[in-house]
């Protein structure tokens, strides 16, 4: 009980810091400050990933975003020797931007709180589950199962079960062995999914990365005047 409430408090603290840092990214005039805030925000998000049991994604978040991408940003900022924004800001433009973003946030919050169980407002959730039922990640989710799936959106996230993870990891495992499992091997399971189901997509992604690298070099290369 203590552990779970600690987790809860930790989540809200982390979320608050992440949001504050995100605001900092937008608010700071100096791009270096913005970059630092972004790194902080990403780190908080990585911590929230850990809290959700997605350890591998959290690590990736840290390494890729807070590490590599941040360094790239900082590198470019330094290299181009960019200072604060000096040109006078257009307040109407800024106000409209905030308005749009605020409206969007309100929309998302309203929709989220409209999930069954989140509040007692069933109206948008009903439409939401039917549309989300088709957009769900799993291929097995069909519209007919949508009400059952929608029920799972409400309330707290389901607990993880080491036994189920063990069974998923090795379908041939005996029930007794599965019950004896104590930890979930997140990387193993993710890797299994990635290298079986999504193998081809993963290879294509690697090509995309490669071509991105080549393209970046080609773009940033200094063009000779002759």
């Amino acid at each position, binding site marked *: 009980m203590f552990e779970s409430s600690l987790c809860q408090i930790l989540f809200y603290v982390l979320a608050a810091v992440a949001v504050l840092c995100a605001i900092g990214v937008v608010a700071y005039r100096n791009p270096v400050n913005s970059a630092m805030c972004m790194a902080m925000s990403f780190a908080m998000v990585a911590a929230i990933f850990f809290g959700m049991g997605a350890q591998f994604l959290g690590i990736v978040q840290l390494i890729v975003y807070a590490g590599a991408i941040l360094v790239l940003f900082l590198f470019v900022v330094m290299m181009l020797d960019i200072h604060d924004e000096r040109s006078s800001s257009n307040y109407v*433009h800024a106000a409209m931007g905030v308005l*749009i*973003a605020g*409206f*969007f946030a309100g*929309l998302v919050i309203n929709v989220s709180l409209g999930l069954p169980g989140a509040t007692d407002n069933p109206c*948008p959730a009903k*439409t939401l589950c039917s*549309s989300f039922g088709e957009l769900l990640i799993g291929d097995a989710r069909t519209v007919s199962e949508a009400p059952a799936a929608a029920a799972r959106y409400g309330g707290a996230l389901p607990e993880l079960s080491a036994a189920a993870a063990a069974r998923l990891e090795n379908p041939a495992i005996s029930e007794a062995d599965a019950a004896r499992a104590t930890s979930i091997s997140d990387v193993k399971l993710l890797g299994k999914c990635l290298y079986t189901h999504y193998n081809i997509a993963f290879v294509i992604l690697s090509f995309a990365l490669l071509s991105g690298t080549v393209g970046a070099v080609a773009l940033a290369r200094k063009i000779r005047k002759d």
Partner: protein
Amino acid sequence: MNMIHNLPWLFLVLPLLVAAIDWLCFSKHPRLAATLSLLSAAGTFGLCVAYLNGLQTGTPGVYTWMPCSLEQLCLHLGLVMDPLAMRMMLVVTGIGLLVHFFSIGYMKGDSSNLSRYYAGLSIFMFSMSTIVLADNLAMTFIGWEMVGFSSYLLIGHWFDKASAADAAKKAFITNRVGDFGFLLGILLTLGFFGTMNFADMAGKAAGIAPALLTVTIVCLFCGAVGKSAQFPLHVWLPDAMEGPTPVSALIHAATMVAAGVYMLVRLQVSMGVEAFTETACCIIASVGAITAVIAAIMAVQQDDIKRILAYSTLSQLGYMVMAVGLLAGEAAMFHLYTHAWFKALLFLGAGAIIVCCHHEQDIWKMGGLRKRMPLTVLCFLMGTCALIAIPGFSGFFSKEAILDAALAKNPVFFWMGAGVAALTTFYMLRLCIVDFLGSARDHGAEHAREAGFTMALPLLILAVMAIISGYGFIANDLVPFNGFHAHGFELGLPFYVSMGSLAVGILLAVAIYGFGGRTKDPLAGNCISKALRNRLYIDALYDKVLIGGLQQGFAHLMQFLDSYIIRGIICQGLMWFTVRLGYLFSAIQCGSLRAYTLVSGIGLVILILLLAYQF
């Protein structure tokens, strides 16, 4: 063929067909066109004579031109073949035939397009026959407009002469004023009587309030005021003399201008006399009498031979209208009938004189014509005698009939009629004395020669008609009125008064103009003469008030509407609005990345809104 009952339609079809052929096919062959028109006039005349001699072909067919679910709103084309119509047709086709014949001589050597002239005459014959034979008011109106159109064509035949073109326009536009009232009257008739058919109108007047009847009749009378050139719309007729003289004889003396009288009598016959309320009659008779008086006064100081005759026509038309207003339809039609012959004679005689004097129209430049062209002068004198109502000539009988009726109904009109008779005698004798007696005052008259055969023959025929058409043996059969009987000549107050006015007129004319020795009008030069020569300034008043004031004011208003409302607000305003709108939309395409992002952000929000709530 059992289509024989449709034979009367030939009265309309024949001239119309000929007009089309003349205009479309024979525009380069005036001789062919003239022959064809002459033949068509002869054909209709022959048909008319045949019908008057008892030819029976059954009832002519009635055709629905514009059908309508409401029976009384249908436009039917039908013919009425009663004595009133058929005897009127005799006048129209008979004088029409003679005028066609006369035209061949008169228009010889004219350089204008003669095919157009003959086509115009044929169109006129068609339209006039339509008026006469129409069995309903709508069809009358069609003919009414068509005669206006053909009159326009023929007055403006020499359209390269500015005065002729102006006169044509004046005639047409002045007639429009009257026609507007006529159309109103037709609609009122349709509303109150429930029908436009002459045959169905009988007896319905009893159920209609007298005030409404008065309005209806006065509106219908407006048409007659325009077409028969009654005061105050009389101004077009003297100007219409710009057209060729045979046209003046046919249209502006004998037939078309009498159409108003014919229409009124037709209405009296079909609606019944009780439809003509006292007020309406008073208006009609007053307008007629006023026209008769002022036209006679104005004729006294005219110098143009055709204009004298034109004012004389006006004055005689005033007589007829007055007779209609006095509910003496038979007298009106009798006078219409005799007047048609002798006035056509006078006009054609004037035409012959004009041609022989090398297109000289001023009577003060003629003179001594009795020696140069005795036959024409003799015929002209016959016509004059008929017009000034010398006993024994046709005009005497008809004028007596009108004066009788006037004395019986209202002595005021009787004395006005008597005064007009004296004036008529005076100005006609003035014309004859100046023209025919004395010696030639200009070389045009000196070299005058007798008119040719084509002109002389119609004159002779008309002269005979001018003498005999008033006598009972011919009038009883041919005067266009149902069951007319020319009452014999009676001694009485009307006779003495008219003899008195005749004597006064003759004495005055001889006293002032002597026996042809004068070279200048002794009456000219004073202010009264000037006023009369300027037509009592009525035309000038119309020019100033109607054209200068009203029309110009209206033109200014229209110009204001056109330049500010239509061009300013509607055209340029629309353009301005479109341009502004274009600028507004082009502002969206500013090229700024940030603005585009903003707009796509708005789009994103809208998209999510639509998706999440499935509006």
